[in-house]
């Protein structure tokens, strides 16, 4: 078919950012995650705390 539609598969991810060193980490979305939720201490600088900056869906190619 000329106009057949491809079915998109979208995977949810959570992007966390440190409030001190601004290090960014990406992981799979877990239930209970929401944007601007405070998370654990930053693994990179060990000073700041991570915060969920984005919850987004990426298309599986």
């Amino acid at each position, binding site marked *: 078919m000329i106009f057949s539609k491809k079915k998109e598969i979208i995977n949810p991810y959570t992007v966390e950012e440190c409030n001190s060193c601004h290090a960014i980490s990406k992981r799979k979305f877990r239930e209970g*995650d*929401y944007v601007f939720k405070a998370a654990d201490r930053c693994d990179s600088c060990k000073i700041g705390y991570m915060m969920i900056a984005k919850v987004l*869906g990426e298309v599986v190619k």
Partner: protein
Amino acid sequence: MDFLGINIDKLFNSTDNSNPLMWLVWIIPIFIFMFYGQRIQLQVTSSEINKSMEKLKTFRDETRTELIDYVKNTFKSLQDPTIKLDRYFEYFTIMPADIDPNGIVPKIRHIMRSREAFTREQVKTLSSNMNHLEASKITNILEVVTTLHLLYKTVRHLFLTAKKQNNFPLILPLQMMMPFIMEEAEALKTAVSAFKQGQPIGDGIGPMIVGKMMLDTEKKIVALETVWGEKNFEGRKLYLMKAEGPAATVGRPGDALEKIIMESKPDIIVMIDAALKLEGEDTGSIAQGFGAAIGGMGAERFQIEEVATKHKIPIYAIVIKESIKEAITLMKKEIADTAETVTLQVYDIIKENTKTGQSALIIGVGNTLGVSQ
């Protein structure tokens, strides 16, 4: 080959006009299509619509089952909620009479708010230990199932009426509308997953941008499910307003704006919202303009425009383009990644259109599911 004494080549000889069999082969279909063409077309169109209608029914049934299972699994001590939920699916809203449209907007607002308040209270009766976030999620999923149910019933009504009357022209508008209806139905079905898991949806980009701007401010409730905060920016005062997240709500931006303007008259209003893209436009493209960027029935927009006009406050708008499906399903990367650019644009608008000592009201419009502040 001449098994029965018939010469096939002679029988279908197209160059011989006197051949009666060849004459019939051409003339019979012409008569068939002349007298039964419309019925044949009706049958073909009917079978196409029937297939889509079956799909629509499956969508409705699946989302209904998903909602019932979600309520059962989330509140385990609960009695079977099926009967109660099934009753909600049949609720309808009668819009005010528009023979005389003067003063119709407050009536629409009243009816819609009564319906919202009733649904909210009814959902809370499903379980005594239901928190605000869960109630908002269930209310949104309930809205999805009700819409799919209504779509299915409307399509079925139009289809059966055309079949009953054997009326081909009656089925044509339905055939034309079916792809659009199915696109909306598929979007609604996909939305249930995001609502259940509390994931931000494409429509939440406005609240996400303003939510980040108001992170280190004191948040105060200004209207039902709506918060605001204040901060300073290059000698200007910013009033930031959005629906209260991470619940699935759009808040009451109209009421909130009215209260903020009464308290502290801002010099400009900037509204950030998701907007439906035109075919061919890229998801996540940003456009800037003027006027109240807010969707829905129009009652909130009317209220915002009226207050802004009364106080002569200009309204600037920034919209992020997305499709209907992207607006109600998990926020795509292309949409989420616009946040930084839009924030810079908002600050540019403020700098260009206000002087030091003046103030601006920034509104993040949309469903704030999965987005705090």
